[in-house]
C-alpha cells in the first residue's frame, strides 16, 4: 500500500489531470453522429501516435553505443510516424466527402 499511497499524494495534481482528461475525452465525442464513427476513430488513432514523442525522447537520451535502444527507438519512430502521418492522411481522405457543399 505504502508506495501506492505515496505515488497518489505525490502525483495528486497529475491524477486530476487524468480524471479531467477522461471526462473531457468522453464529453468531446459523446454527441458524434454515427456517420462520423469511422473518421473519428481514425483521427483519434492518429492522435494516439503521440507515442513517437516518447520514441524521440528515447533516442535523444540514448547512448550512441546502445544499439538496442537505437534500433528499437528507430523502429518506434518509423512505426509511430506511419501511425501519425498515415492516420491523419487517411482520415482526411475519409472526410473529403464532407467538403462538397455548404
Amino acid at each position: 500500500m505504502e508506495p501506492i499511497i505515496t505515488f497518489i499524494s505525490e502525483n495528486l495534481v497529475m491524477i486530476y489531470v487524468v480524471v479531467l482528461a477522461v471526462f473531457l475525452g468522453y464529453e468531446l465525442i459523446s454527441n458524434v453522429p454515427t456517420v462520423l464513427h469511422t473518421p473519428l476513430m481514425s483521427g483519434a488513432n492518429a492522435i494516439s501516435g503521440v507515442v513517437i514523442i516518447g520514441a524521440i525522447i528515447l533516442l535523444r537520451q540514448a547512448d550512441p553505443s546502445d544499439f538496442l535502444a537505437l534500433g528499437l527507438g528507430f523502429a518506434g519512430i518509423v512505426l509511430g510516424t506511419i501511425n501519425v502521418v498515415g492516420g491523419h492522411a487517411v482520415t482526411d481522405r475519409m472526410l473529403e466527402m464532407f467538403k462538397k457543399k455548404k
Partner: protein
Amino acid sequence: MTIQLLVDLGYLISVILFIVGLRRLSSPKSARSGNLLAALGMGLATVITLFMPLEQAQDAMIAYILILAGIVVGSVIGWVAARRVAMTAMPQMVSIFNGLGGACAVAISMVELQGIQTAYETGQGVAGGVHFTALMAMFVGAIAFTGSLIAYGKLQGLINDRKVRLPQPTLINLILLLVLIGGITYKMVDPQLPYTLVLGIMGLALVYGITFVIPIGGADMPVVISLLNAFTGVAAALAGLVYGNQVMLVGGILVGSSGTILTVLMCEAMNRSLLNVIIGGFGSTGGAAAAVGDQVAREISANDAAILLRYSNQVVMVPGYGMAVAQAQKVAHELEEVLEENGVNVAYAIHPVAGRMPGHMNVLLAEADVSYDKLKDLDDANKLLRDTDVVIVVGANDVVNPSAKDDPGSPIYGMPILDVLDSKNTIVLKRSMSPGYAGIQNPLFFHEKNRMLFGDAKDSLQKMVNEVRALG
C-alpha cells in the same frame, strides 16, 4: 528558463489543439479542420520534442540521424499507404496504423524497462510507479499491436472467421489474462527478477492480443479496432507518465477515453453491448449481410444511408406497395423536404404497376402533398436514373426487378421496369428478404451497388430524416 517556458506553452498548445481537433472531428461540418488541427498539434509537439532542453539528453549525432530518417521513412510510408488505399479498405488501414502505434509503445517501453532493470540490478532506486507504468504501457501496447494486425487480417479477408477458430476462447483468454496480471504483479513485488520475465510478459501479451481478437466475428472488427485504438491511447498515456511528458499523457488519455466511448457508441448503434461483442464472438447475429442461398445482400445503417443522401446531387425515391402498407408517404415527403433544404434534388419514380391498384402511388403521394412536378413516369424516370446518385426503393420490389430485363426465364421477363441500377447507388427499404406480388426473388438485392435497410419503411425513413437533420 525562457526556453522551458516556450516548451511548456508549446506543449500546452499541442494539447489544446488535440482537444479542439477531437471536438471538431465529432461534427460533420468541422471534421476536416479538426483532423488538420490535431495533425498540427502533433507536428508542434514533435518539433518541440526534437529541440527542447532535456536533462538526460545525450543528443548523439547518430540518434538525430535516426530520428530524422525515421520520420522521413515513416512519413513517406504512411502518406503513400493512406493515398493509395481504396475507399473500401480504409478500416483495414486504420487497423494497421493503430497496430504500428501499439508497436511503437512496446518498443520504447522495452527500452525503458531495460533501463529500469539495469537500474534495479545496479541497485539504483527507481520509483515503483515508473516501473509499473512502463510495464503497463508495454502490456497494453502489445495487445493493441497484435490485436490490430488480426483485425486487419479479418477485414482484408486474409483470416477467415469460420476457418481460424479457437477452442474455448473465453477460457483461454481468461487464463492468459490472469497469467499476465500475475507476471506483472510478480515483477512489481520483486523488481530484481530477471529481464527475461519482462520478455516473457511481452511475448504473452502479444499472444493475448491475437487470442483476444480471433474469436470476434469479422463484422464486429470496426468495434474492435476502436477499442484497440483506445488501448494504444492508454499505452501512449502510460509512456507519457514514464517520461513525465504532458502531451503524451493528456493526448493519450483523451484518445483512451474518447476511444472507449466511441466503442460503446458503436456497439449501441448496432444495438449490442460491448461485452456481447467481445464475448459473443461467433454467436453474434449482427452480421452486416443477409444471405439467401449463397447470395449475400449487404446492409446499410440509416446513418450511412443519410450521409450518402445528404451529400448527393440527385436522389430518386421509388415507392412501391410497401410504402402503402407502411403508410410511409408523409415521411417520404419529409425526407424529400429535408434533402431539398440541403440542396439535394429529389424526385419520385412511379412505376405504372406499383402498388395494388392503378394510381395507388399517386393517391398516397397526393395525400402527402408531394408536388405533381416531382413525380416521374417510367420513361422520364429511366432517363433521370442515369444521372442519379442514390435511389431509395421504398417498399417496391417487382417494379425494380432486373430479371424483367436480363432473365428470359423470369415470369415477368419483358415487363418494363425502373432501371435503378443505372444510378450510382441503390438502397432498398423493406422488412425482410421476402418477394413481392409476383412471388419471385429480386437480383437487385444482391447487386454490389445495392444496400438493404431492413425494417418498416416508415421507421427507416424516419430514422433517415432524423440522421439527415442531425448532419445539420
